[in-house]
């Protein structure tokens, strides 16, 4: 089985409410022509500029939409996840508004679900994905369930309740489907990934609480590539784990970011910082004992993952890891 190798880093930090650069990026997905759509979450009292940014793999910044915060048709308060269907409509969940907003691939608003119970209400919609027939699967974190809807939003089925048993959830977050339409859920506070059929039949569960290989601490996102390899954003452990199709541990990724094109461009016009940076060692250091935790290590070490919140696979099976706290995306591929 091949190993996943680092390719490149995309993006850089910007707290501007417009233009290129990320501030707490949360999730990405790809339009049919390969453009990258990214949720720029912003945060707290500085939420001006929450929006969707569109750019290419080559870091050509294209445009943005949904700038908020706001409750209008075309903006957001706290967007969480996004997913394209086969008609190139992008579905974006907002856990504060309890809505799913739908846009075309140019960012034009199409419709919103969840407002005034149309077509139904949601409680904390988070992970979202589409079946091969464009049915919509959405995690409702506050109901600890997965809801399946038709492409037009009609209710089809729902499964799960709060708990620790198979088929139960505790504040679930990310969701993805494999090529056979099996549904994978990042069961966040149960520290596991659960696998279901598209009708909600429980199939399997991977992982348990911990820091060893194959164990998770608050997994936030899951993705499956074309050969069934499973990628888990092990958010609380500040790492990404690669599992075999049967859920066995295969590989650990800690992150190895380099300077993105945007980052290089910024540093070139700020030579004082660039020069000092070159004289510095930003890799993992021997930290004082009380700082030897995944969080502190990540916070003090620039290249490794810090807040790896989302994993996504593109059409070429490349893995994109979005880090909300380093405001960038690291890209990997199968060697």
């Amino acid at each position, binding site marked *: 089985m091949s190993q996943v190798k680092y390719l490149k880093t995309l993006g*850089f*930090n*910007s*707290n501007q409410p417009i233009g290129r650069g990320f501030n*707490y990026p*949360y999730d990405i997905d790809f339009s049919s022509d390969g453009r990258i759509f990214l949720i720029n*979450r*912003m*945060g*707290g*009292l*500085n*939420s001006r500029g929450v929006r969707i940014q569109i750019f290419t793999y080559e870091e050509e910044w294209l445009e943005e939409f949904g700038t908020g*915060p706001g409750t209008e048709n075309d903006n957001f*308060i*706290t967007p969480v996840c996004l997913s394209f269907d086969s008609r190139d409509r992008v579905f974006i969940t907002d*856990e*504060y508004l309890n809505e799913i907003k739908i846009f075309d691939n140019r960012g034009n608003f199409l419709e919103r679900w969840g407002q005034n119970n149309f077509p139904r209400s949601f409680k904390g919609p988070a992970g979202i994905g589409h079946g091969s027939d464009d049915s919509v699967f959405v995690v409702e974190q506050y109901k600890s369930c997965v809801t399946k809807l038709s492409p037009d939003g009609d209710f089809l089925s729902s499964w799960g309740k709060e708990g620790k048993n198979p088929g139960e959830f505790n*504040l679930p*977050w990310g969701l993805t489907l494999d090529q056979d339409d099996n549904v994978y859920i990042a069961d*966040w*506070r149960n520290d596991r990934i659960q696998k279901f059929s598209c009708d909600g039949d429980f199939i399997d569960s991977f992982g348990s609480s911990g820091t060893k290989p194959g164990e998770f601490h*608050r997994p936030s996102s899951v993705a499956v590539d074309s050969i069934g390899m499973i990628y888990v954003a092990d958010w*609380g452990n500040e790492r990404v784990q690669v599992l075999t199709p049967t859920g066995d541990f295969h590989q650990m990724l800690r992150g190895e*970011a380099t*300077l*993105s094109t*945007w*980052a290089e461009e*910024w*540093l070139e016009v*700020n030579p*004082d*910082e660039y020069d*000092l*940076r070159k*004289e*510095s*060692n*930003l890799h993992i*250091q021997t*930290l*004082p004992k*009380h*700082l030897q935790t995944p*969080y*502190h290590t990540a*916070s*003090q*070490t*620039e290249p490794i993952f*810090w*807040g790896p919140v989302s994993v996504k696979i593109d059409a070429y099976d490349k893995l994109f890891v979005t880090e*909300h*706290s*380093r*405001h*960038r995306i690291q890209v990997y591929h199968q060697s």
Partner: protein
Amino acid sequence: MKQTHRELIAHLARRAGFGATSSELDFYSSMSYEDAVDEFLNDREGNSIPDDLIFRRHVDLHTMQGHNAAYWAYRLISTDNPLKEKVALFWHGIFATAELKLNNLGSLNNQVEMFSRCGLGKFDDLLKELSMDPAMLVWLDNHDNHKDSINENYGREILELFSMGVGNYTEDDIKECARAFTGWTVKNGEYMSTMGFKDSIWPYGRIQWHYEFREEDHDAGIKTFLGEQGPFDGQDIIEIISRQEATARFIARHIYNYFIADEVPVPQWSETTPRDPDAIAFISDSYHRNEHSIKEVLRDVFNSQFFKESAFMRVKSPAELVIGTLRKTGEYQTPVGGETGIFTVMEESGFMGQKLLDPPSVEGWHTGEEWISSGSLVERVNFVTSHLGDHNHPGVKEMIEKLNSTTSENNDPDSFVDACIDTLGLDKISEDTRFELVNVARQVINHENEGANVDNIPQETIIQMFKLIGSCREYQLC
């Protein structure tokens, strides 16, 4: 008038914590006073809102790069081991480090965590941790303190503001102290301080700091410090400082000011006699006797007579007022993404004069009556009444239910006022204030119920009484 056991416990809870609710008073009152002191001084980690929930709901708190007081506030309002946080707040006021210069709140938050972790330990160890704390190293320029070019800022302040106080050392001692701390810096210090100076978040956000000792930049030569001579490094200097009588008295006075009664501001200490010299002498002696253990000093203090007799002799700091009130109202026990209340509520503390993580200078805040001005008093009263006056808050709901469950005993105005005072954990109030409160209660209860006993006192009446009590002088004190 002799204090009841419950009144004494309430006093302890206000000083060793942020005040107790009626239910918490029930709990602590069920044990002896000495056991209650031990309970506050226990070594357990303490439970508070878990980080994972906070970070999921407030992603910007994950990087600790903005509004960190909100993160600390979650711990302050939810911890079941309040003395650890109260002590962290104590040291934050003394070893005052501010976000303004650092532009690296994550490292400042790590400093607060260190105060919580080490604040009850041996003072020597705390000073050593402080001297290796990245936020402090940058705040007082020790990253610019080099073997061939000393910067005496940290050397001066560790003596003046962090241990002995002015008048107990010479300018030569400051220089020798600074020499001993050369080479104590932060990893990648030049780049990190430049990023901080420029408020740079590029390219990938801020990088938190950690300590580094650069041997090649350390002056290992012989120093003469406070009459002792040797090739001292920072650790040696701290041990010498920690055994000084001046340090014992300085710490005693800080403990007295924070846990017992208001003292004049620190700059006046060299010229103004302490309010209670005997108490200062007792605490100083305890410091030496207990080998500089802050925890054991506090145990002696809490069990002392002068502590027991010090109820309402301190003005609550804004942070104590805000946190104590929120603990009563039960707000923000569950982080909610997209809601900014926890951020703005800590801004309120700033409007009252104490913005956590942003003290006005290295000297910290001026305390006591200096917390009170015509503007800040209005802020304080408005804050308390608006929060205690909202029956939607879970803690307020619980207090109303508890009052109503005992209505049959509390449906006359006198009993009703006393029950409300107890429910708010205030335990006693001046006779004049109580007289006025009873008058109000009499008018409302008699008017609404035509003088008859009732099964339930209306919620609005209870809320009104909570707001009136929250406006009282005693609520501003602790």
